[in-house]
């Protein structure tokens, strides 16, 4: 990561459009524009539709920095609102990706109607304020040229539409596909998955098969020639708008109802006794209150009960859960409440998001984005230590590593004799985890922070710890 002597840290994920670049300076987020992008920005800033998008929060807060700093190599510099926690599309649930796609199309339709367009159509153009999507790529707007289709259509298909089709039509979780391929899923791959009668499913014949066939047939034609041919054949902005309307209708129709998942009912089937639950809620509330604002991570968030308690005191909460169906249920609930501070994310803590894209830094790893003031790890450690065989010390290293110095770790230790721990142990050979003991856990914890508070739940098989990190 390059930090220049002007205190500028260039965002490693922002290099694909050479006309503008996002950078960080003194804890704020900026975007530098070259001459041409600056002209586009001035036209955009003067337009009513963009003012409306800003006022309604659909586009991230943006203002021009005046006067333009002379120590920076840009014609114009914009200051952006800070997104509370940067997430990647492969960490979103189905409903999140669908709502992100709909917002992208809504913004494109508004732009086209006002004589503008978007240069691209990537899922990475979107981020979240809690459970509300926000379009962040202000550099993507430019004045539209008559007679040209949307340059971002292919990218939209590959990073938004195709993942939605995979999940809605085939019931395949899209996250691993997006995580493995930064540019999304190619039409050719989709054609193989949607053979036979599957090609009759909504949107498949045109956006997958025809799209793939056209790509193959026109592989030798330059986009300059094809643009000229389309213009000569009478392609109009109205047609571009009709395509966006068609895509919006299709995405709205794509409905995915997840199969019953073990974890969807976890909170109910693994019900704590009422005294246990009350004691746990009080403990968490007090621990987060003591830390105050900032960012709280709820790891293994399930139905978000403790993420909501954390949100009473933290400025922002990221609720991480490995089951996409559980995250989707939580997202739908939070979205319906208009929640803007709790962000639900899909991630397996035994396989957290690695760095991706160019040099492995274009999309930052989860560990490099966390830096939480409060880390909640409730009913989690036994799943990692007994279910996934991760050594107890390493489980704690990860939890501590996701917090900042001066922050708080709230962690629950499920004793080996607890019914849930027993259930996991019954699937493993006897004596496989001799170190999975409360005294070992406590000494490991003491080596990594200062124990502030400890409470054993009334059932006597679970203990909660509040630990101050970094001394």
């Amino acid at each position: 990561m390059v930090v220049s002597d002007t205190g500028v840290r260039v965002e490693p994920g922002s290099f694909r459009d050479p006309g503008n670049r996002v950078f960080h300076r003194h804890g704020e987020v900026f975007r530098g524009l070259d001459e041409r992008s600056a002209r586009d920005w001035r036209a955009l800033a003067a337009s009513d539709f963009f003012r409306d998008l800003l006022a309604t929060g659909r586009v991230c807060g943006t203002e021009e920095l005046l006067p333009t700093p002379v120590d920076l190599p840009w014609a114009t510099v914009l200051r952006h609102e800070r997104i509370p926690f940067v997430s990647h599309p492969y960490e979103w649930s189905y409903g999140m990706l669908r709502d992100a796609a709909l917002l992208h199309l809504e913004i494109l339709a508004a732009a086209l109607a006002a004589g503008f367009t978007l240069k691209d159509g990537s899922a990475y153009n979107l981020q979240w304020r809690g459970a509300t999507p926000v379009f962040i790529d202000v550099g993507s707007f430019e004045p539209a040229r008559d007679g040209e289709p949307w340059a971002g259509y292919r990218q939209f298909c590959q990073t938004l539409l195709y993942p939605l089709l995979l999940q809605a039509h085939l019931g395949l979780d899209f996250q691993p596909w997006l995580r493995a391929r930064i540019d999304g899923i190619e039409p050719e791959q989709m054609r193989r998955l949607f053979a036979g009668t599957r090609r009759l499913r909504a949107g498949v014949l045109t956006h997958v098969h025809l799209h793939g066939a056209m790509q193959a047939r026109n592989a030798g034609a330059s986009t300059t020639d094809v643009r000229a041919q389309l213009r000569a054949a009478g392609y109009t902005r109205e047609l571009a708008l009709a395509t966006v309307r068609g895509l919006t209708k299709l995405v709205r129709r794509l409905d995915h109802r997840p199969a019953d998942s073990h974890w969807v009912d976890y909170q109910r089937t693994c019900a704590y006794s009422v005294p246990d639950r009350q004691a746990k809620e009080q403990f968490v509330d007090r621990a987060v209150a003591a830390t105050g604002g900032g960012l709280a991570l709820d790891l293994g968030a399930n139905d978000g009960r403790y993420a909501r308690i954390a949100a009473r005191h933290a400025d922002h909460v990221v609720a991480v859960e490995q089951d996409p169906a559980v995250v989707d249920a939580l997202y739908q609930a939070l979205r319906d409440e208009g929640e803007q501070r709790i962000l639900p994310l899909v991630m397996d803590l035994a396989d957290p998001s690695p760095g991706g894209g160019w040099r492995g830094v274009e999309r930052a790893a989860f560990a490099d984005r966390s830096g939480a003031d409060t880390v909640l790890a409730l009913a989690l450690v036994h799943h990692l230590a007994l279910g996934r065989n991760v050594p107890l010390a390493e489980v704690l290293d990860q939890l501590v590593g996701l917090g900042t110095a001066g922050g708080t770790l709230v962690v629950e230790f499920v004793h080996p004799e607890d019914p849930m721990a027993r259930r996991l142990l019954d699937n493993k050979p006897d004596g496989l985890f001799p170190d999975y003991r409360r005294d070992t856990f406590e000494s490991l914890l003491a080596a990594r922070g200062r124990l502030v508070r400890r409470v054993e739940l009334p059932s006597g098989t679970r203990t909660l710890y509040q630990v101050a990190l970094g001394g």
Partner: protein
Amino acid sequence: MTHLAYLDAGSGSLIVQAVVGGVAGAAVAAKLYWRRLVARFRRQPTDQG
């Protein structure tokens, strides 16, 4: 002036957008292919000569 976006939009991806744009769009695509066909026949005698 020809202006290209930073992103390669993909030639096939541009044409397919005409096709999915309803009847009017399909007509544009048909016209494009018709013109390509006519251009090919027109070019042939010149190429041979």
